[in-house]
């Protein structure tokens, strides 16, 4: 039989070995799957890489997917550091997009920089307030934030659906339920072929990592995450810290909504969040809550998405099969986390011979 033991400490070399093994296993298993579909695994993999990074255009496209993942991961990371399980990134993205869209649609007569600034603030506040609800209930009534943040996703989704099919429906669309496209005023400009969401994202990654590392606030967050009792004993105002941190966590997710609405969708739609709020949970975990690792982890994830989409057309692999590949790779990589924390011992069991 197999026994499971918790590892006390893990050497960096071991940790790397486990992860590398996981990736290799993932590719081997996926190879089998690809071979079953009648394709050459090696050429599929190389074409996945080619699809994600092969040309300048493809690199830009991959980064476009990476930006929301990075930013949402940073937001979620702050909450996770306090062991506040914010599963509500998706809803916060949507509410941020909603507020940004409100400004984009109502104030499109403002000069572009001013309008974008309002949309930025709107996005931040929208996402932040949405995250404050579970934070308030948790601190006041000790409710379970995992459930509440998760459920708030669906409320946000239905709210956007209501707007898209109801009051914000574009009358010019002849009955088709879509919200009007933004005017040029409300669209983020580009720098080096990529919308400047990448600059916002980089700036936020740097600011947040500095704050987590060097500020008192960041230190409080770490202490609360390690032990609430210690935090209380050392006189940290837990309520204030948690609420402000969750507001910023949700606010950063809200900024994802602003960037996606302004630069990518150029309108608001129910499909806007595209699962980034959930994807970010995975990338946040994979990066062990370290801001600087979030960037490469998210880019790799985006490459997996883009590469998967590329092979669909290149090899005529059905959509769902490409998704199976992505999930398989994820499954192994996340599964390896288990082996980083636990070790298995093989017991020889006495066999009863008939």
């Amino acid at each position, binding site marked *: 039989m197999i026994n499971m033991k918790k590892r006390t400490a893990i050497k960096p070399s071991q940790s790397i070995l486990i992860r590398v093994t996981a990736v290799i296993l993932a590719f*081997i*298993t996926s*190879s*089998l799957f*690809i*071979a*079953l579909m*009648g*394709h*050459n*695994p*090696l*050429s599929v993999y190389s074409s996945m890489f080619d699809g994600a990074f092969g*040309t300048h*255009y*493809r690199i830009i*496209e991959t980064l*476009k997917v990476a930006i929301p993942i990075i930013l949402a991961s940073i937001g979620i990371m702050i909450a996770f550091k306090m062991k506040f399980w914010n599963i509500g990134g998706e809803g916060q993205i949507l509410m941020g997009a909603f507020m940004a869209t409100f400004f984009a649609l109502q104030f499109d007569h403002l000069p572009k920089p001013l309008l974008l600034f309002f949309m930025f603030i709107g996005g931040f506040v929208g996402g932040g307030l949405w995250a404050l609800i579970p934070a308030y209930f948790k601190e006041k009534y000790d409710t379970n934030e995992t459930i509440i943040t998760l459920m708030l996703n669906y409320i946000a989704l239905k709210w956007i659906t209501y707007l898209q*099919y109801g009051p914000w429906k574009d009358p010019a669309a*002849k*009955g*088709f*339920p*879509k919200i009007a*496209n933004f005017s040029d005023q409300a669209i983020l400009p580009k720098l080096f072929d990529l919308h400047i969401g990448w600059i916002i994202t980089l700036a936020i990654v740097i600011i947040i990592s500095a704050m987590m590392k060097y500020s008192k606030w960041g230190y409080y967050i770490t202490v609360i995450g390690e032990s609430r009792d210690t935090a209380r004993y050392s006189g940290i105002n837990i309520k204030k810290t948690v609420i402000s941190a969750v507001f910023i966590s949700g606010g950063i997710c809200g900024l994802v909504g602003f960037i996606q609405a302004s630069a*990518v*969708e*150029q309108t608001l*739609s129910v*499909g*806007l969040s*595209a699962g980034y709020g959930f994807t970010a949970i995975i990338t946040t975990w994979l990066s062990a809550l370290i801001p600087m690792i979030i960037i490469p982890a998210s880019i790799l994830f985006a490459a997996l998405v883009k590469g998967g*989409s*590329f092979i*669909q*057309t*290149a*090899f*005529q692999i*059905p*959509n*769902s099969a490409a998704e199976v590949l992505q999930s398989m790779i994820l499954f192994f990589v996340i599964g390896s986390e288990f082996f980083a924390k636990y070790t298995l011992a*093989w017991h020889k069991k006495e066999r009863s011979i008939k």
Partner: protein
Amino acid sequence: MKKVLAMLLIATLVLTMFAGCEKKEEEKTEDMTVGFIYVGPIGDGGWTYAHNEGRLYLEEQLGVKTLYKESVPETQEVETEIRNLIDQGAKVIFATSFGYMDFVEKVSKDFPEVTFFHCSGYKTTDNMANYFGRIYEARYLSGIVAGLKTESNKIGYVAAFPIPEVIRGIDAFTLGAQSVNPDVEVEVVWTYTWYDPASEKEAAVALLDGGADVIAQHQDTAGPQQAAEEKGAFSIGYNTDMKDMAPKAYMTAPIWNWGPYYVEQVQKVMNGEFESHAYWGGMNENTVQLAALTDLAPEGAQAAIDAAKASILDGSFHVFQGPLYNQAGELVVAEGETLTDGEMLELNWFVQGVVGNIE
């Protein structure tokens, strides 16, 4: 245990290498590549399936290389996917859902050397044509079948979005049913989705519970057909022959035949003869048809259909010819008048006998 694992690994590796050697990717040498984007999966058995049949026909007839992308939502994703297809060599793009329209229009301006075809919309540019079919003609015929079949005089209609394309179909269907059964009512439920088997089925169940005994649909899946079968009612499909999906309910369906148009247009692009246009092929062009009736179709249906079909084909009858009344009973199209193509493309009112609201 470890040995077993090791063996398994080796076996896997060997197998994959072997498979790799065995099959080489077939490279087509033709320099024409055509890209398709679909709103649902090919396996939907409906709308996307019908377009994919057209794509396969195109490959077979012209030997061109085709690329496709399934399940592309009607969001910014459209633009990304079109750019990806162009990046992968596509010179012609067929975008097959209404909600793709604005994105196709936008991309068409960025790629003047690529030719775009958008299905079911109303916008065109120099290098973007718009195509659709007069499916309302076939819907009128299917209405005749439903009108003869119903005993409760209540027909349920599961519909996607309140846009002109769908409204036109509902009106034509209702007029067809009324032509053989003046007391018939057609009740409409909106699902606000093209592809969602579960909610389409649910909508049909609601209509059946409300007393309908025949179900028609403007949806991409056979969900409503299955609901009808489970409730012991009858059904009119859409897009493709849905006989196999609900053999105990399905009577017929207005169906699409895109292949010939795809071949004709791609040939034109290859010859450099493409001109932007708005194509609207009907039964005369064979773009739309009524699928063969099954044994469940009512007696006399075939004769009634044949007569109506003949009069549509020879132009002596038009589905939207007056007198036509709206839901409030007001005369909208006077006797002797007929809706123009432009008016039909913008149609936004229900004829008398339809139960339901637009919006």
